[in-house]
């Protein structure tokens, strides 16, 4: 189970999205559809709050990369906040800590 919520209060022009729960291939299709709908054409920066994200697998990481590609087409970025250590480790292993902007705090 996962939950994806968009906060209507944008911060410095960023679309604020709160992600909670577990993302694996059972939840990936719904996660992908909802996230891409929120990201739209990718014309705004994305602020992804992950304090409640307890698990994400390679499929979920691939979906995040897809969102990143959309915003990068418009010279924007994906900022990720409040990542748990176990998830941060996966970003580091896959090299995604170099392409997403991982913020230490928010």
């Amino acid at each position: 189970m996962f939950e994806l919520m968009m906060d209507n209060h944008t911060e410095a022009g960023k679309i604020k999205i709160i992600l909670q729960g577990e993302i694996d291939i059972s939840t990936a299709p719904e996660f992908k559809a909802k996230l891409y709908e929120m990201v739209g054409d990718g014309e705004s920066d994305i602020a992804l709050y992950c304090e409640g994200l307890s698990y994400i697998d390679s499929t979920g990481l691939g979906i995040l990369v897809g969102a990143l590609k959309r915003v990068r087409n418009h010279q924007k970025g994906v900022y990720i906040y409040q990542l748990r250590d176990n998830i941060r480790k996966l970003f580091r292993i896959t090299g995604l800590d170099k392409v997403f902007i991982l913020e230490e705090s928010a």
Partner: protein
Amino acid sequence: MSKVYDEIKLHLPQKADYLGFIRLSVSGLASKMGFDIDTIEDIKVAVSEVCSRIISMNPDACSDYDIAFQLFESGLKAVFSTDNCPGRDIFEGESGAFAKAIICSLMDEFDITYGQNCVITMGKKLGDCVNG
């Protein structure tokens, strides 16, 4: 690794619905063996990645696959096998590359054999990863 003292086998439908069950089961098993909390998380993630790749090979979900957890004094080995071999690299594509990087980094042993069956083996030594 040394001699197997116990083996636990799971026979599963190739469905994503049971991934949570597998993660819970392997976490419990690794905990019982005495792995520390961080290593239990690593094993759980690696096992789930392999299951995901096997399941994603067969979106029609009409086949089964097997996992044998072999318990050694020195560690844990997981052997995944499916006779529904796709004839291609199950770690192909962007997500597949992420999965492979994650498994290689988190586990001590990782091997794939493509034949009539697909057999994927991974192992984690207890070593310094002991709870306590």
